[in-house]
C-alpha cells in the first residue's frame, strides 16, 4: 500500500508542477485547474474507450488542458477580468463540457481496459512486483516533466516568463507582449494539470466529474509543503519541491484516512485538514520572513 502513496504522489506531481508555474512563476492564481484536472481524466477516458493509442490519448489530454488555460488567459487579458474570476468562469464552463465528453454521464469506467499504468505494470512486471513497476513508470514520467520544465525556464522564453511574474512593466519594456507570455504560461500549466488528471483516471480506473474538486488547494498545499522541506530557491530546486511536496501531501492524507479514526476524523474531514495545513504553512512562512527582517536590522 505504501507504494500507492508514491504512485499517486508522482501522478499528482504533474498537477503540482502546473500549479507551481501559475502561482509561483507567473503570480497568477489560476482556479481553472479544478476543471482541467477532470477535463484531462474525461478526455483520457473518451479516447481510451474508443481504443486510441494510449500515448496519443495522453497527448490529446495535454492539448485539451492547454486550450482551457488559453481560454482563461484570454478572458483575463482581453476582457480585463481579474485572474481569479477568469479561472472560476472557465472552471464552471468546464463542468458542463466534462459531462458532455463523458457522454452525458458523471463517470466513465476504465476497469478491464489497458491503460498506460497497467501496461507499465505488465511490462516491468515480468521482473518486479506490479505495484513497483507502476511506481517506476510514474517516477520516470514525473522526473521527465520536471527536467523539461527546468530546461524550459532556462530558455529565453522561460526567463521572460519568470520576469513577467516578477515585474510586468520590465517585460513590456523589453518589447514582449505580456498577454501572449501569460497565455503561454497558463496554457502550459493547465496542460500539465490535464495530463495529471489523465494519468489519475487511468490509475484509479475511472474518470469522474468530481475528481478535480479542490485540486487547486491540493496543488497549493503540496507546493508549500515542498518549499518548507527544501530551502533552495533555484528553479531546479523549486520543481523538486513540487515533486516532493506532492508525495508528502499524499502521505499525510494516507495517514489521515487510515489512522484518522483514532482521533475521530472521517475521510470527509480531509479537506478541512488540507486547508488547515495551508494556513499553518502560511503562518510559518510569515514567521520566517519576520525572522529574516529582524536579522537584517541587526
Amino acid at each position, binding site marked *: 500500500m505504501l507504494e500507492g502513496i508514491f504512485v499517486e504522489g508522482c501522478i499528482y506531481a504533474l498537477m503540482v508542477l502546473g500549479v507551481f508555474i501559475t502561482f509561483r512563476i507567473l503570480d497568477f492564481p489560476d482556479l481553472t485547474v479544478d476543471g482541467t484536472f477532470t477535463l484531462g481524466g474525461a478526455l483520457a477516458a473518451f479516447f481510451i474507450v474508443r481504443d486510441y493509442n494510449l500515448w496519443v490519448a495522453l497527448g490529446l489530454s495535454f492539448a485539451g488542458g492547454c486550450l482551457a488555460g488559453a481560454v482563461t488567459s484570454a478572458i483575463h487579458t482581453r476582457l480585463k477580468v481579474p485572474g481569479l474570476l477568469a479561472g472560476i468562469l472557465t472552471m464552471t464552463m468546464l463542468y458542463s463540457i466534462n459531462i458532455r465528453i463523458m457522454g452525458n454521464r458523471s463517470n466513465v469506467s476504465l476497469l478491464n481496459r489497458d491503460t498506460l499504468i497497467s501496461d507499465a505494470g505488465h511490462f516491468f512486471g515480468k521482473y518486479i512486483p506490479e505495484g513497483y513497476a507502476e511506481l517506476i513508470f510514474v517516477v520516470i514520467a514525473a522526473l521527465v516533466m520536471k527536467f523539461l520544465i527546468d*530546461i*524550459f525556464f*532556462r*530558455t*529565453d*522564453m522561460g*526567463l*521572460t516568463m*519568470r*520576469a513577467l511574474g*516578477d*515585474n510586468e*512593466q*520590465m*517585460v*513590456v*519594456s*523589453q*518589447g*514582449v*507582449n*505580456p498577454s*501572449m507570455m501569460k497565455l503561454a504560461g497558463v496554457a502550459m500549466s493547465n496542460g500539465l494539470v490535464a495530463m495529471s488528471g489523465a494519468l489519475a483516471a487511468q490509475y484509479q480506473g475511472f474518470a469522474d466529474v468530481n475528481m478535480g474538486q479542490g485540486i487547486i488547494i491540493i496543488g497549493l498545499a503540496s507546493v508549500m509543503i515542498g518549499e518548507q522541506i527544501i530551502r533552495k530557491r533555484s528553479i531546479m530546486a523549486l520543481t523538486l519541491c513540487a515533486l516532493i511536496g506532492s508525495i508528502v501531501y499524499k502521505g499525510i492524507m494516507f495517514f489521515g484516512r487510515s489512522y484518522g479514526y483514532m482521533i475521530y476524523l472521517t475521510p470527509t474531514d480531509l479537506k478541512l485538514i488540507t486547508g488547515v495545513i495551508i494556513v499553518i504553512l502560511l503562518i510559518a512562512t510569515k514567521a520566517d520572513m519576520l525572522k529574516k527582517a529582524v536579522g537584517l536590522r541587526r
Partner: protein
Amino acid sequence: MIELSNVSKVFNEGTVNENLAINDISLSIKEGDFITVIGSNGAGKSTLFNLIAGSYEPSRGRILVNGKDVTRESEHRRAGYIGRIFQNPLLGTAGKMTIEENMLLAMKKGFKGLKIGLSDSARESFRRELVHLDMKLEDRLKDKVSLLSGGQRQSLTLLMTVYSRPSLLLLDEHTAALDPKNAAIVLNLTARFVKEHGLTAMMITHNMGHAIEFGNRLLMMDKGEVILDVSGEEKKSLTVQKLVDKFHELRNEEFESDRVMLSE
C-alpha cells in the same frame, strides 16, 4: 526623428471628472537631441511620456517615429525602439532574477523563443558592458538584482536600456528616488551614454539646475502645454533666475519655485 502633431489627451472625457492633461501639443524631436523637460506637478510631463511610449493612446493627434505613424501601436511594440526609464528603480529590472538573466532579456527586444541564449560568450559581453558602470557589477553576474542598491539598479537599467541603441530614450525623473550621491552618478552616466552613442533623449527633471546643465534643448510645461522651448545658444545662457522670470512673464502668475527647485 519623432514628430507629435496636435496631440491632446483628455482623461474621463464627457464626465464631471474630465481632465485635459495634454492640450494640443506639436513637437518635433530631431535626431541627437537631448531635451530636458521641466514643469510643476500636474503639468503633463509624465502624460506626454506615456503618450510617446504608448502607455496611453492620445485622444486627438498623431505621433510619428522616423516617418511612420505609431499612434495606435502598442506599448510593447514601441519598446523595440523607444527605451524608457522610470523614477522607481524597481521598475526597470526583475529583482528575483540575476544580473545576467536581466541583461539577457534586454539584449534583444521583442519575442523571445525557445533557445538558450545565456552562454559563456553572452556572459563575456555582459561583463564588458558592466565595466562601463564602474561599480564592480561585472564580478556579480549571478547575484540577484534585488541585492543591488537603488543607484546600482538604476544604472543597470540604464545600461540595459541603451544596450539596444533605441531611437528615443525617455527618462522620467530617473534619478529622483536616489540619494544625491547616487543621483549624480546615474545622471553623469546618462549624459555619457547619450553622448557616446549619439542617442536622442528626453529627460524629465524637477531640478532646474540639471535642466539647464544637461542637454541641448529645454521644454517647460504647464497645464498640458509646452510654454517654453529653447535650444542652442539661448539655452546655454539660461540661469535658474531667468527661467523663473520667464515663467512669470509667460503665465503672469507665481511659479511654484519652492516646490520645483527644492525637490531634487
